[in-house]
C-alpha cells in the first residue's frame, strides 16, 4: 500500500470507528424508518423522510467503505462532497450538511474533548443553516442548534465522552418535543418533526456505541415516534 506513513495505523483505526458509528446509525434508522415516514407532514406530507434518511446514511456507509485512509484533509473533504451529492430529500440534504460540518471541524488527532465536540456541533449547525434563505423553526435545524448550544454549555465540564453525548441528546429530545408547537404544520397534525427524530435516532445510536451499550435500548426519542399520526 503506497502512502503508508507514521499515522497510517491511527488513520485505519479512526476510519474503522467512524464506520462502526455510521453502521450503528444506519441500523437504528432502518428500525425506525416506518415510524419516521409516518411523522412526515412537513415540508410535504409524502411519508418519505425515513426512507430518505436511510438512503442517505447508507450512502455514507458505502462512501466510508470506498475510502482508503490516506491524506486526512483530502479524505475528509472528498467524503463530505460525496455525501452531499448522494443525499436524498430535504432531511437527507440537511443531515449531510450536519455531517460535513462535523467532519470538517473534527480534531485531526487526540481524544474528543468538550471543546472539540462543541466546535464540531457548532460547525454542523452553521453548515445546516447556511444553505437556506429563511430557516424554519420546529425542524431538524432547531434541534441541531440546541444540540450545539448544549455542547457549548457543557464544554468546560469534566465528563467522559459518552456521558457528554448523552446529556446533549437529552437536550435534543427536549427540543424535539417543542417542534410540535413551533411549526404550524406539525401543530396541526400533532406530531414532532420527522427529520429531527431521524437525527436523534442517529446520535443516540452513536452515543450507545461509544458507551459500549447495546444499541437496542429504546430511547425517549423512540417513544416520541411510537404513535404515528392517523392518515
Amino acid at each position, binding site marked *: 500500500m503506497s502512502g503508508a506513513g507514521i499515522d497510517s495505523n491511527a488513520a485505519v483505526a479512526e476510519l474503522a470507528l467512524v464506520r462502526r458509528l455510521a453502521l450503528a446509525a444506519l441500523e437504528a434508522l432502518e428500525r425506525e424508518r416506518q415510524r419516521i415516514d409516518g411523522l412526515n407532514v412537513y415540508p410535504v406530507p409524502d411519508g418519505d423522510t425515513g426512507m430518505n434518511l436511510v438512503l442517505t446514511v447508507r450512502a455514507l456507509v458505502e462512501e466510508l467503505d470506498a475510502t482508503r485512509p490516506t491524506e486526512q484533509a483530502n479524505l475528509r473533504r472528498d467524503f463530505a462532497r460525496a455525501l452531499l451529492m448522494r443525499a436524498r*430529500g430535504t432531511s437527507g*440534504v440537511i443531515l449531510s450538511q450536519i455531517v*460535513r460540518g462535523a467532519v470538517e471541524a473534527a480534531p485531526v488527532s487526540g481524544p474528543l474533548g468538550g471543546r472539540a465536540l462543541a466546535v464540531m456541533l457548532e460547525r454542523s449547525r452553521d*453548515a445546516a443553516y447556511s444553505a*437556506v*434563505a429563511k430557516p*424554519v423553526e420546529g425542524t431538524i435545524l432547531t434541534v441541531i442548534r440546541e444540540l450545539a448550544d448544549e455542547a457549548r454549555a457543557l464544554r468546560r465540564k469534566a465528563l467522559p465522552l459518552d456521558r457528554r453525548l448523552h446529556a446533549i441528546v437529552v437536550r435534543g429530545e427536549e427540543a424535539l418535543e417543542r417542534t410540535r408547537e413551533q411549526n404550524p404544520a406539525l401543530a396541526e397534525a400533532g406530531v414532532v418533526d420527522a427529520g429531527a427524530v431521524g437525527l436523534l435516532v442517529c446520535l443516540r445510536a452513536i452515543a450507545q456505541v461509544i458507551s459500549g451499550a447495546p444499541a437496542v435500548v429504546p430511547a425517549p426519542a423512540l417513544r416520541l415516534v411510537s404513535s404515528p399520526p392517523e392518515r
Partner: protein
Amino acid sequence: MLVDAIQLQETPLGHLLVSSRAIAQIAERSLDECYGVVGLGRGARIRRAFALRRRHGVEVRSSEQGGIELALSIVIAYGLNLAEVAATVRSRVSYEVERVTGLEVSHVEVRIDDVRRGD
C-alpha cells in the same frame, strides 16, 4: 391571450379570481423556506411571451389543461446536489400553491440561475 388572474370558482353570485401576482407571492414565500435555496434568480426568460406575471424568481402561466404552470428561477447553495434540491423545490412549491389556492399545478420548471456559497 395574456391574463393576469385565474378563476378559482364560478358561483351564481359571481366569479372568484386569484391574480397571478398573488400566486407568485405564495410560491415565493415557500421558495424562501426550501432547503438549499439561498436566493431567487433574476427570472426565467423561457417563453416570456406567455408569462402572465413575473415576480422576481417566479413566473405564473395558465395551463391549457385548466391548471397553472410555474417557472421558478433560484440560487442554490454551493456543494449541494442540484437535481435533488430542484426535486424538493418542485414538490414543496407545487404542494403549497395547490394547498392554498386549490388550483392544480400541472408543471413546474426550475431554472438554477446561480450557485452561491452560503458560509
